[in-house]
């Protein structure tokens, strides 16, 4: 995984850069489309003749004879400074495809969008003192509600811990299955997919869209574009609109939003998210992944030769060639150069060039190619999920020669590759081919990820089960440290903070432990009435709040002279056995 291609132009050329290309595409790919449609949702793994051929040509970056390197811009012979500093985007027109991975992506899209839109509307009864929204980030009151769990700001480490778990989970998934996050669940991917559905519905599939974009601006084109962008904007508004519901009571906020009563922050957030959804999902699309997202850069460190990646199996496909007859099958590989894999790619790349920075491993090229292979009566899996390990061994089997040249890079010389090497006598795939097995998922690296993930998860769970819903804090008055009273007794002042972290008001009894004869009294609690000293105080704390009480503690002259310096305040829930201790000091004059 030493080299990634970062050249959008070369891939754009492949897809639909010029009118000539577009025309050949139409012809060459009609079978691809038909095949895709007829294909249905059959998982590639169910095909007996297509076990997981597992290969990854990401090192095969040596220019291939069949496909000379393409110049992005400029005219040959011109001096370098003629090259443009800024290049317009080459628009990508992904073709519709059907197959196992496309269906999987539909389901993932339905699930993720469903979770996103429905969650704020779920209700969860917490009694009359807390909101009944199942998932609520209450920024104003600094509380986070998740079903039966309520998080206070000092408990935010739960959220931080879950973010760490999410990060390690991402490492785990990437080391096993490459950029599965990017290809299936990343919001950018999901929303681009959604926007593409709209685009396809309004403007038609790839060829129709290419034609439409080249057509003059007549009324029908204008109306199509206007409708498309209007729907995109509506989806964007709904996206931003759903986001704000996580931060306030959803039904109330929805009513406020409609009647213009909601806070400006809500409208502002919706406006910003509408703008980002529309521009990132509708307009920028693959450029977000290629230019903005740091993850493609990090993935190089995350992948190893046992990671599953979307792979074009050169050992089967090369040398590629069109319009051949079965008699030629011994000299040509399985790839018929139909460009179906290129046409469906939402990132505008050619997977046959190997693993590339732009590839989000959405696996749509696998579906497209399987459709073609079915049409041709060939085993599926010319493009497949495969590990570099099995790919390399199959390349050797096919007769390719590894290149290790420090100047030109590492890769494969395909000139000695013989397609029949990977075939058995009956024309099926050879038994000697290497396949990716489940065992390769469980290696030291992934086991460490799993262990760390589980350890953090169990730690958080343990912390959640044993956490206190009652907290007592005591600060001794600093000035004066103590007050001598007229009868010689000594009084100390304390600021006592009681956090009632339950969603119901509670009554507590505050006692003193380890200070014989101590009496308590709170001037403000008694409404400025005459001092009413007693061995314990009753403290009322409202639901889900921190209450502060200024207390006085008194010891008579004899007791003060002999009392220990350290004692405990004990806070007891009047309604249950819950109690909490807090250490405090008793100060007195030097004897």
């Amino acid at each position, binding site marked *: 995984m030493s080299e990634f291609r970062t050249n959008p132009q070369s891939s754009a050329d492949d897809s639909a850069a010029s009118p000539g290309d577009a025309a050949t595409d139409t012809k060459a790919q009609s079978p691809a489309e038909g095949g895709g449609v007829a294909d249905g949702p059959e998982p590639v793994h169910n095909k007996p003749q297509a076990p997981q051929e597992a290969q990854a040509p990401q090192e095969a970056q040596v220019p291939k004879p069949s496909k000379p390197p393409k110049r992005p811009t400029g005219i040959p012979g011109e001096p370098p400074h003629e090259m443009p500093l800024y290049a317009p985007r080459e628009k990508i027109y992904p073709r519709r495809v059907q197959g196992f991975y496309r269906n999987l992506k539909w389901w993932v899209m339905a699930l993720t969008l469903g979770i996103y839109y429905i969650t704020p509307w779920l209700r969860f009864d917490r009694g009359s003192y807390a909101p009944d929204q199942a998932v609520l980030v209450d920024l104003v009151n600094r509380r986070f509600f998740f079903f039966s769990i309520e998080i206070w700001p000092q408990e935010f480490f739960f959220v931080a811990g879950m973010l760490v778990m999410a990060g390690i989970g991402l490492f785990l998934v990437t080391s096993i299955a490459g950029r599965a996050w990017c290809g299936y669940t990343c919001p950018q991917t999901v929303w681009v997919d959604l926007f593409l559905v709209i685009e396809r519905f309004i403007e038609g599939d790839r060829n129709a869209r290419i034609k439409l974009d080249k057509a003059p601006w007549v009324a029908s084109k204008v109306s199509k574009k206007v409708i498309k962008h209007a729907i995109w904007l509506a989806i964007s508004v709904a996206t931003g609109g759903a986001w704000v519901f996580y931060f306030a009571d959803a039904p109330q906020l929805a009513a406020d939003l409609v009647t213009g009563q909601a806070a400006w922050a809500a409208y502002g957030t919706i406006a910003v998210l509408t703008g980002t959804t529309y521009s990132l999902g509708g307009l920028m699309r693959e450029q977000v992944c290629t230019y903005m997202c740091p993850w493609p850069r990090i993935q190089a460190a995350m992948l190893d030769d046992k990671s599953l990646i979307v792979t074009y199996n050169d050992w089967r496909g090369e040398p590629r060639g069109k319009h051949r007859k079965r008699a030629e099958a011994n000299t040509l590989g399985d790839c018929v150069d139909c460009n179906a894999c290129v046409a469906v790619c939402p990132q505008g790349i050619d997977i046959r060039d190997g693993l590339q920075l732009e590839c989000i491993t959405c696996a749509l090229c696998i579906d497209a190619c399987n459709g073609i292979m079915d049409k041709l009566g060939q085993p599926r899996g010319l493009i497949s999920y495969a590990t570099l390990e099995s790919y390399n061994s199959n390349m050797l089997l096919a007769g390719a020669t590894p290149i290790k040249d420090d100047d030109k*890079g590492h890769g494969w010389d395909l000139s000695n590759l013989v397609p029949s090497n990977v075939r058995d006598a009956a024309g099926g795939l050879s038994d000697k081919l290497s396949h990716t097995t489940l065992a390769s998922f469980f290696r030291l690296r992934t086991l460490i990820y799993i262990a760390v993930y589980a350890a953090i998860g169990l730690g958080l769970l343990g912390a959640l089960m044993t956490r206190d819903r009652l907290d007592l804090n005591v600060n001794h008055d600093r000035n*004066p440290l103590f007050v001598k009273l007229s009868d010689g007794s000594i*009084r100390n002042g304390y600021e006592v903070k009681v956090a009632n972290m339950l969603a119901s008001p509670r009554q507590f009894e505050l006692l003193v432990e380890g200070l014989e004869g101590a009496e308590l009294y709170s001037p403000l609690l008694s*409404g400025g009435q005459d001092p009413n000293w007693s061995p314990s105080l009753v403290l009322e704390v409202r639901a889900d709040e921190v209450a502060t009480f200024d207390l006085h503690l008194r010891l008579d002259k004899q007791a003060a002279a002999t009392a220990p310096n350290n004692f405990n305040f004990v806070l007891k829930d009047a309604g249950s056995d819950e109690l909490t201790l807090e250490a405090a000091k008793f100060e007195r004059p030097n004897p």
Partner: protein
Amino acid sequence: MSDERQIDELSGVETTGHEWDGIKELNNPLPRWWLWIFYATIAFSIGYMVWFPAIPLLNGNTPGLSGETNRGKLQEELAAVAQQRDGMYAKLEAASLDEIRQDPDMLRFAVAGGESLFKVNCSQCHGSGAQGGPGYPNLNDDDWIWGGELEIILDTIAHGVRAEEDDDTRFGEMPAFGRDEFLDGAQINQVAEFVLKLSGQPHDSAAADQGQTIFEDECSACHGNDGQGDPVAGAPALNDALWLYGGSKADIVAQVNLPKHGVMPAWEPRLGSLAVKQLAVYVHGLGGGQ
């Protein structure tokens, strides 16, 4: 840079011709939207400079179309706070002391206001924690020379103690028994022993018994027969553990011989009745209020 265009063999992309340790920089053009964003930031900065104060001049700066300044914002915020407080001030002004005690909101507001007033005006003598010092009463305890009820504390603060400028000031003066030769040295010694006895300290019983007669003749008119004191006259209790000028025999003798008399200014003319009200509530709430 050479005039020959150089193509990177691996990627097919033209290079800039720059080479470091065998690594050549590819000359991939930036995406055009990136350029647009660059232009947008320039447009934003121009708009910013027009709208906000931005360019320093010799005397000040360009005001900007919005006319917004940090100082102006502060003024607005202060005005908002003042407006918010005004309502509470009016309420406090109208309320009686008892009403303030009964209403938690007013009580909290008065205590907070009184505390900050105390820190500014009173802490110089009484200490930042109202803990007092030799000659300056501790306001946290339950021993009050002029009385510890809220109304009386308010009156004491308003008119001061022995404040010459105020006709209603607290006034009480103990005769200088020694200097003016009302009592001779032996008698002062005896009365001091009796005061030690009153306050439960070690003393000479014989001298104290003789001192009792003198105390009843000379002192009990103000300090009371049992030395319990009299807030109306400003005569401190002598039978407790708290002393303003010290409780040792030497301190007592010195005070009988030539008494010290503390002075506090009248605060109402200086701070106004509202401030005095808040101060009284704060002092009363320190824990010793009666």
